[in-house]
């Protein structure tokens, strides 16, 4: 019950934010922060039981017929994520209050943030995969609202569109994967799916399931080649960026990978895809971050890199690697959250985020400088910070494998970490040292509401680094266990002796520091290479859009020309093509060619009909065409008479007469007939018309093959006297057996005649006078 409340709290409270804001005024942030804080505290009470190996699960029926249950589940993995989401959430709420103090739409922002937090908690706590997906898409929507908050720039527009399109696209694909997964495993509850790993990995549908789910996870977690949307989403206000990029949104993909690891992980395909994508993302992200000058963009690309590292580690999938992933996940959330918030403080205090315009801020912003320094140390992976432990574990996981590929991956990882160390210096140290620069606003220290968040996060990074044992048993070990699906024993410490990992760390620090001090010369070079990105996916996205556009345009020209004649042409040709198969392809339908006794006047009538139809088609005057059509109609009436259906014939004659009158009346008003089609068109139309006519003829001939049905004439012959007391069978049929039909026909004729009369009256009453027409 508490679990459901924890997830739904954000959604329930969001609508009341305006009132909270009215009551709370400038302290709104602190008040709203209580919501995530309560959740965080509640989740913290579960740490003990979960560490003891328990799990919690609740389930309520939602839409049972769709296999959708409102079921939630807590194990080590979801707990770690839940704590990050709610904990950092609380800090963000406080921070946003200070950052957007007095902003007109602050209430709206809080409502979005609360809903977003609820969606994130829903993802990590959901047990039902469809519920998971519902919350997954809810994060797409709410994050879109957050990214789009307060923006009317063309740049922001395309960024938001890109971000949404990419994540929604991935989400839809993942839905397909989840559904097939549920179908194959016979359950839509994670707790049951995760126990069927062996069966799933052997299943013939494993590959589509894996690819579809990976598509969702990769787009959400900005893996190459989908990485381009994430920096674009930097248009959001800073508290939002900090929240989305540290602990939440982008980590959702990582969560899904970790979550499904026991069910889908461990195959060659899994390892190859994840290691390749993760490794590429790690190095590309780090590299792209280096030449940026906007603080937030630097941080955004470094987030891409960190996400790559996480995916890489989950792809490797050894005990050490998963442990490294869990630790690095926590490390990254802490320092990245802190650094984003610091970037916001700098922006807030100086009016710019351009690192070329920032320097020597430590005097004006001493506390910020300390906080930023701590976070940067953690990011750089230097002792005694938590970040050091994280990086050591990552290296450890990589060097324990031997062979060319692991060595190569290890090399890339070192390179990426060197760049990250440089970036840590650029964002965390650079702005505070060196000479003072002119900034748009005079630098000033931030208020407590802004400082609380980053200070807590950076402080935690330091505290865990110093006493890592605090977290191993309680958080990291259960989470690792949950990802691996097997019990593990874990020991981590700040100092773990001289080993290959430490040597790699030494190299990282040495080279990194060197590059940091040479950055003035290196960054312009990197910037040039940075321009090559236009040949990557960032270019591909608009290209794909253009491609789809041109497909659509081509079809519009071909099929949607707007000319009725082409529409008809398409339909006729399709119908002929479709119907021809059973008609001619099977060859069964013409097995009774019986043209026995055709009478001479029938042939004469046939010829007459054909000539009239031909005349109607080629006539140059409308009246001529109508008259010819009339001949066809009366001819058909004659056929009815020949074959003993005088009632039908009578109706046909009446209808035909009315039709001719109507057509003449209507067409009389039209302008003169003009020959518009070219010779070629006429030939084409003639061919199509003849084909269609041929098909109809064949159809009628084929219908002869039906078995003889009982004819009804015998019935009338026997019953017209006893039942209807009449000897003229035709009369009896018309006025007795089918009296209702006759009544209907008369009615139809009367209505049509009334229409003709109305038209005639219109013609008589001054056709030019439109106003008078309307009254009629």
């Amino acid at each position, binding site marked *: 019950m508490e679990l459901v409340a924890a997830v739904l709290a954000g959604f329930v409270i969001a609508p009341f934010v305006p009132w909270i804001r009215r009551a709370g005024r400038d302290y709104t942030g602190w008040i709203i922060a209580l919501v995530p804080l309560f959740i965080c505290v509640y989740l913290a009470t579960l740490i003990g039981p979960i560490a003891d190996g328990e799990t919690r699960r609740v389930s309520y029926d939602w839409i049972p*017929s*769709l296999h959708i249950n409102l079921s939630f589940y807590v194990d080590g993995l979801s707990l770690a994520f839940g704590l990050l989401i709610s904990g950092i959430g609380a800090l963000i709420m406080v921070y946003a209050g200070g950052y957007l103090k007095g902003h007109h739409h602050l209430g709206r922002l809080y409502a979005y943030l609360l809903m977003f937090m609820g969606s994130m908690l829903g993802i990590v706590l959901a047990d039902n995969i469809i519920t998971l997906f519902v919350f997954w898409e809810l994060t797409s929507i709410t994050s879109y609202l957050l990214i789009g908050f307060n923006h009317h720039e063309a740049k922001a527009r395309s960024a938001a569109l890109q971000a*949404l399109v990419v994540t929604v696209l991935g989400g839809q694909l993942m839905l397909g994967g989840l559904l097939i997964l549920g179908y194959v495993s016979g359950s839509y509850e994670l707790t049951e799916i995760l126990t069927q790993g062996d069966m799933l990995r052997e299943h013939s549908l494993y590959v589509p399931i894996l690819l579809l789910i990976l598509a969702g996870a990769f787009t959400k977690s900005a893996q190459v080649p989908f990485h381009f949307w994430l920096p674009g989403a930097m248009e959001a206000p800073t508290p939002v960026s900090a929240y989305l990029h540290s602990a939440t949104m982008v980590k959702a993909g990582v969560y899904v990978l970790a979550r499904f690891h026991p069910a889908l992980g461990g195959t060659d395909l899994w390892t190859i895809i994840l290691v390749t994508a993760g490794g590429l993302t790690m190095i590309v992200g780090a590299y792209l971050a280096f030449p940026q000058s906007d603080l937030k963009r630097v941080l955004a690309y470094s987030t891409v890199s960190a996400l790559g590292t996480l995916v890489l580690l989950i792809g490797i999938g050894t005990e050490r690697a998963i442990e490294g992933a869990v630790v690095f996940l926590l490390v990254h959330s802490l320092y990245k959250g802190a650094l984003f918030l610091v970037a916001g403080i700098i922006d807030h205090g100086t009016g710019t985020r351009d690192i070329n315009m920032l320097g020597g801020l430590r005097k004006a912003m001493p506390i910020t400088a300390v906080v930023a320094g701590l976070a940067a140390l953690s990011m750089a992976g230097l002792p005694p910070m938590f970040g050091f432990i994280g990086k050591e574990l990552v290296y450890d996981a990589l060097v324990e494998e031997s062979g060319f590929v692991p060595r190569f991956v290890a090399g890339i990882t070192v390179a990426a970490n060197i760049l990250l160390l440089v970036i840590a210096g650029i964002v965390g140290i650079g702005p505070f040292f060196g000479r003072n620069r002119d900034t748009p606003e005079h630098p000033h220290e931030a208020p407590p509401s802004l400082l609380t968040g980053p200070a807590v996060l950076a402080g935690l990074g330091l505290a865990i680094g110093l006493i890592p044992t605090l977290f191993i048993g309680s958080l990291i070990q259960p989470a690792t266990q949950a990802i691996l699906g097997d019990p593990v024993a874990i020991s981590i410490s700040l100092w773990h002796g001289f080993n290959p990992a430490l040597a790699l760390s030494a190299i990282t620090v040495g080279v990194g520091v060197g590059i940091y001090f040479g950055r003035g010369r290196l960054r312009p070079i990197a910037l040039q290479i940075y321009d090559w990105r236009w040949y990557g996916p960032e270019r591909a996205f608009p290209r794909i859009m253009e491609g*789809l556009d041109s*497909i659509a345009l081509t079809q519009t020209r071909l099929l949607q020309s707007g000319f*009725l004649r082409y529409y008809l042409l398409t339909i006729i040709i*399709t119908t002929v093509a479709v119907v021809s198969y059973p*008609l001619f392809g099977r060859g069964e339908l013409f097995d009774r060619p019986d043209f026995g006794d055709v009478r001479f006047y029938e042939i004469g009538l046939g010829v007459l009909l054909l000539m009239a139809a031909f005349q109607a088609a080629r006539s140059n005057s409308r009246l001529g065409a109508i008259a010819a059509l009339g001949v066809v109609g009366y001819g058909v009436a004659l056929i009815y008479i020949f074959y003993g259906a005088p009632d039908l014939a009578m109706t046909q004659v009446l209808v035909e007469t009315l039709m001719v009158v109507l057509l003449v009346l209507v067409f009389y008003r039209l302008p003169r007939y003009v020959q518009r089609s070219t010779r070629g068109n006429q030939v084409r139309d003639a061919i199509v018309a003849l084909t269609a006519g041929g098909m109809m003829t064949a159809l009628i001939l084929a219908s002869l093959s039906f078995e003889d049905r*009982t004819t009804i004439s015998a019935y009338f012959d026997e019953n017209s006297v006893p039942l209807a007391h009449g000897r003229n069978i035709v009369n009896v049929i018309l006025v007795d057996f089918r009296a209702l039909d006759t009544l209907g026909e008369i009615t139809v004729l009367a209505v049509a005649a009334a229409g003709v009369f109305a038209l005639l009256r219109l013609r008589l009453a001054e056709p030019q006078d439109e106003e008078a027409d309307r009254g009629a």
Partner: protein
Amino acid sequence: MPRFVDLVNPDLTLIVPQLIILGVALLLLLADVILPKAKHGVLTWMSLIGLSAALVVNFFYVGVNETTFNGMFRADDISVFVNLVVLAAGIMSVLVSSSYIQNLEEPDSMPLAEYYVLLMFSILGAMLVGAAGDLVMVFLGIEMTALASYALTGFARRRMTSLEGALKYFLLGLFASAILVYGMAWIYGATGTTSLDGIAAALDSTVGAGNLEASLLLALLLLVVGLGFKVAAVPFHMWTPDAYEGAPTPVSAYMSVIPKVAGFAAMIRILVQALSPIREDWVLLIGILAVITMAFGNIVAITQRNVKRMLAYSSIGHTGYILAGFAAFGVVVPADDRSISSVLYYLLAYSFMNIGAFAIVTWVQHRGRGVDLEDFNGLASQSPLTAVAMTIFMFSLMGLPPLVGFYAKYYVILAAVEADLLWLAVAIVLASAASAFFYLRVVVAMYFSEPPETAPEGNTPMLGFGVLAMVAGTILAGIFSGQLLDLAQNWVQAFPVVL
């Protein structure tokens, strides 16, 4: 011996919802003559009350499953659900239309009474298709719906595009009807009856394993072509964009739903009820048609800059999803067969979100804007609530949870997956991923573009209420879909499915 219709004792208690609509239509005609023009606002209320009354009465028929008029008319769980969709859509259409028709948004006036009468007859036609027990009834209902739609499309009679759309719709529609009725004639020829159950029984006894008789296949293809046209499946869709764009916007809203519902109801009656013994020959055909339709509709919609046209192509895409539901028919044991229930539920979901989207277009037109994408620029800053509503409709059409469009699409995918049609499931997922492009474009225009300088105000309470109702429907019909789904699942009791 031929059997004659027994006119002595039709059970009129079974056709009360239809009678109510007929009565309302006649009353409207009468009121048009009696009431002075100034009091024609009453007509809106008459229509609303009539439709609501029919909607309420309709619920008494849940689980009844009886027939009358010698089996021609059925009051079963399918007709109940079709009535539900059609009447709900009818109410929404009236709410969307009233101000548009009265406020002279088009050149020259449009007579309100005639509009509602046509609407009512069209609704009645769709209800008759849903309740049909005989091919003749199906045809009668379809034509009743369609004829009124043709007239409504051309209702802005002084605007060329409206007339053009109507003419194209009319001529192509007639052509399709001819093909359809021809297919029916062939079925009659092959089975000797027009009764749906009779056809199923006849086919069940004659159809053996192996190749289908050529004559039946021929009939089937003709029927599929005719029905495909009615529901605007590719390649029989060409009339849709022209007609939707040309018609007065509330008419586009209405005809994107009700005639389509009639078409799908006809498919249920003909393909599922009558032709289920030869389902192996049509499920694949419909499946392929579904994929072509959803791919085509969703890709072509991307390039559209006119929102009404875009919605026309989007509705073609949705036709594809619904057809996918049919393709899943008959694989699973009947009681669990989700195929037709997914179709029915999708139709309901679709009517909320699609009429909703058109309602916002109408709303925007009332404020002196056009129907191009640019006309939605900056709507969020000028009228935030409208923008939120449109966003909800777009997200729902896209299939995002927790909106009704998601559950509907999910249900169809589930049906496809359970019928082992994974290729179809993946196709739906891919198509709806592509649809994100154009739905989001509207949302982005509303939230991220500069609004125009001037923004004339409009006062359209009825429309506003309608939008509110549809927003509520789009949100609630998804989250609390359990009972609706159960209602839709009742279809398996509507008639004995012959497999």
